[in-house]
């Protein structure tokens, strides 16, 4: 039951929210509609654009041509269906540190976003950002179908509950496959992950989405333990759960300082990358109440409105 996760009051408040979209979306499917800056057919004027061969010449503004000696066509906002893609990182790193419960937290975010989308009559799909197979071959994309009705949330919940995280995240490979399978289904892509991958890897992956003109929103989920792992650690062997890399460390002031600096650098690089490319970004700490994150942080960061 969804109420096992979210309070009824919280759900009612989610129903009042809408996914905030800043990009033009290409869509053909009917469903929840968003007025987007597309050469649409609504009566709401959008802007002038240069005439390209193939444009409907019925929209050429001949008055302006006479004054400017330039062919411009009027564009109108088109009410188009919004597809919401909630992509959930299911790599092994989402389970660690265990006390942070990053994956559980991420699932709640995914469900909340899906609920918001469904309650706004958007087409919502949730997919798991899975890894390569053990043989290195690409795994099939694990995803739900598109749901438009609110009752789809239960199927979505069953889907996320059935996911068992594992393996190493392969965001680029996944997104390539995902876009291929969802070709023609633009919209808003929300990536929920700890983004504990090299910046180059996530940048290349997200760039694919950017080139496809998706509205991209990044939720970086980190826990308090991950941000400061030295409370109960004096020395020991560090093991990367995905790559199995190992390193013996002894906690010193210098080591702490170095850790904080590198983690902060990594997070800032992601944040700056999102800002530069007009993508919504937020750092979701698992020790923040999920309701506060959704209802306060997300609207502030442009995830929902």
């Amino acid at each position, binding site marked *: 039951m969804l109420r096992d996760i979210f309070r009824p009051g919280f759900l009612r408040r989610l129903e009042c929210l809408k996914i905030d979209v800043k990009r033009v979306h290409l869509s053909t499917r009917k469903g929840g509609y968003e007025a987007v800056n597309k050469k649409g057919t609504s009566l709401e004027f959008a802007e002038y654009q240069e005439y390209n061969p193939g444009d409907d010449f019925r929209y050429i503004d001949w008055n302006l041509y006479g004054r400017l000696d330039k062919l411009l066509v009027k564009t109108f906002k088109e009410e188009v269906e919004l597809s919401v893609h909630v992509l959930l990182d299911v790599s*092994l*790193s*989402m*389970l*660690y*540190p265990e006390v942070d419960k*990053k994956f559980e937290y991420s699932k709640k975010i995914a469900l909340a976003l899906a609920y918001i989308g469904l309650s706004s009559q958007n087409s919502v799909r949730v997919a798991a950002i899975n890894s390569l197979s053990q043989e290195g071959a690409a795994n099939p994309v694990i995803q739900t179908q598109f749901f438009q009705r609110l009752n789809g949330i239960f199927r979505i919940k069953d889907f996320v509950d059935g996911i068992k995280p594992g393996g190493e995240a392969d965001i680029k490979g996944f997104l390539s496959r995902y876009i291929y399978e969802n070709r023609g289904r633009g919209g808003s892509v929300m990536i929920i992950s*700890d983004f*504990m*991958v*090299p910046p180059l890897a996530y940048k290349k992956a997200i760039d694919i989405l950017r080139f496809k003109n998706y509205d991209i929103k990044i939720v970086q989920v980190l826990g308090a333990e*991950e941000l400061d*792992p030295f409370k109960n*650690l004096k*020395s*020991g*062997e*560090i*093991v*990367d*759960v*995905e*790559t199995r*890399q190992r*390193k*013996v*460390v*002894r906690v*010193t002031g*210098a*080591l702490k300082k*170095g*850790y904080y600096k*590198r*983690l902060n650098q*990594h997070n800032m690089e992601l944040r700056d990358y999102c800002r530069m490319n007009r993508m919504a970004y937020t750092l979701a700490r698992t020790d923040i109440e999920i309701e506060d994150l959704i209802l306060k942080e997300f609207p502030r960061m442009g995830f929902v409105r």
Partner: protein
Amino acid sequence: MGILSPLALAYLPLAGLLVLIYLFRKKHKTIFVPSFIPWKGLRQDTLRSRSFLSDALFFLQLIALLLLVFFLTRPYLPSLSSGIIGREIIVLMDTSASMQTREGGRTRFELAQEEALKLVDELGIGDTMQIITMHRRPHIENEMSGNKPELRKLVEGLKPIDTSSNLNEALSLGVSLLGHLDNGALHVFTDVERPGQMDSDVRFVNLAGSSRDNVAITGLDVYQDMFKEYREREAYVSLENFSDRPSTVILKSYLDEKPITEQIIELNPREEKTIRIQDIKGSGLLKVEFTPDDALSVDNAAYAIIRHKKTLTVLVVADEPLFVEEMKKIESATELMKFSVIPPVSYRPGMAKEYDIAIFHQYVPQEYPDTNALFVFPPKENRFFPIRGWTRGASFIDWDSENPILRHLDYMGELWAYKALHLEPNEDLKAFIMAVGTEEDFPLAVSGVVKGNRVVVLGFDVADFNLSKAKNMPILIMLLNIIQWLDPHGAENYQIRTGEPFIVDLEDEQEGDEITLLTPEGETVKIDPAGNQLVITETHQSGAYVLKRGGDETWFVANLFDVEESDIGGTSSRQGQIDFKRAVASTYIEEKKKGLGRYILAAVALLLLAEWILYCMRARTAVT
């Protein structure tokens, strides 16, 4: 190379334990992290992450451990050495008085010296000898030595002394020492009869020859109690003839070298006579000797000290006229006592200290008198002597005839006290007279030492007795005995037997004074006090000794007075131990084992030092 303790190899599995410890240490706490990204570039703890097999610290510890186990096995390097096992000879020389007996032209001790010197001359390579002298106590003269000149010098320097002998104790010591020797023998040179069967490695040489002619002074007693004047003093000399034929001697006595008497005494074989010497006119050194000389001279003279006349001061605290009268009767009857009589109200604390004796009649002061004291019929309420009750009319029922207070009092059963106190003896005060009234018997008189002073308490009133009457003579004698016993100078003994210690109590004011002893041979010896006492043990010669402390002189005398020493005949025989097996030197070849333990321990110490340095270097590297 060999090992003496192969069982120590059982410690080798400890090396496995060390390996396990390392393996356990290598099990670091594992922390799974979602990514290495924040950890990249951070320095790895090289000290803890170093691989096990290449860890030099481990190898150093392993080597140190193995070396320690090797050390425990007691490794050695064998080598052969040869030598001679020499004889270890113990010589027991009797130096007691009887060894001064002349056998022909030489004394028995000279004969013993000759035998001992022969043994010294016979010492071969590797042989050693130890000399033990024997008189009242055995005395080890040297460590086991093979130095023949030194041994000769030692033997030639020995002299007999004027004391008795203690063969059993000396033999016990010699046999005990012999038990610790591998190739030892004990040679005993004495004139005492061999005691029973001896071990085969004990040679007993009896030096008693044919000499038997000896007359000895075996006792000299001087009766000089405080109630007698010098002219009344008498000395009694005991003479005994130990030879097998009659002897006639001229006995002479001297007081401070001035002749007193001269008597011709005839003694039959083995006869003992006691001779009285009278007319001792003063104090000083009394010497008694006889002529002619015989085989043993040391017992031909004896010495005694005639004490200086000293007036005894007595404080009488009494106001009962009858008691005071009786005391004055005693004072008037003797010349050496001075009584001072005061009533109890005039008594002040500390007053008694000025007197030799204090006598309290029906009175006990609040503070204990600091002198020897007699308490006659003390009041029931007093601080020092609990009184359980009193009886009207009590008979003397029992008494301690061994007590010096009751000397010369064989029977007191006819005495009867008008009023008798039930005294209570304790740890310090013991009852010496018991009385009985109508019911049970009770202590009537007690005596003892309280706070360092002699005390007598009488539970009956002496004033009830008229001491002039014959029937009350025992009470008078007892009173005089009490005064004699309480006399602080009465217990002084200035006559000891040779070899016995002479003990003198030192007074505080004499501390720091140099103390010397002038011996009968004219030698002056410095004496160190032992605490508040002087214990003089250098009393081996018979004669008069003079102890000098500051300006004071104390004379005392030492006499042999030992019948066994004077009886020089015995059942002498020159026959030694029949089964005596003379020790012989022998050569030996033995395997010596040179232990390596110290070198191994040094190596372990170096290893540990190297490990410590290595550890410090790594720790510093890890920090930086």
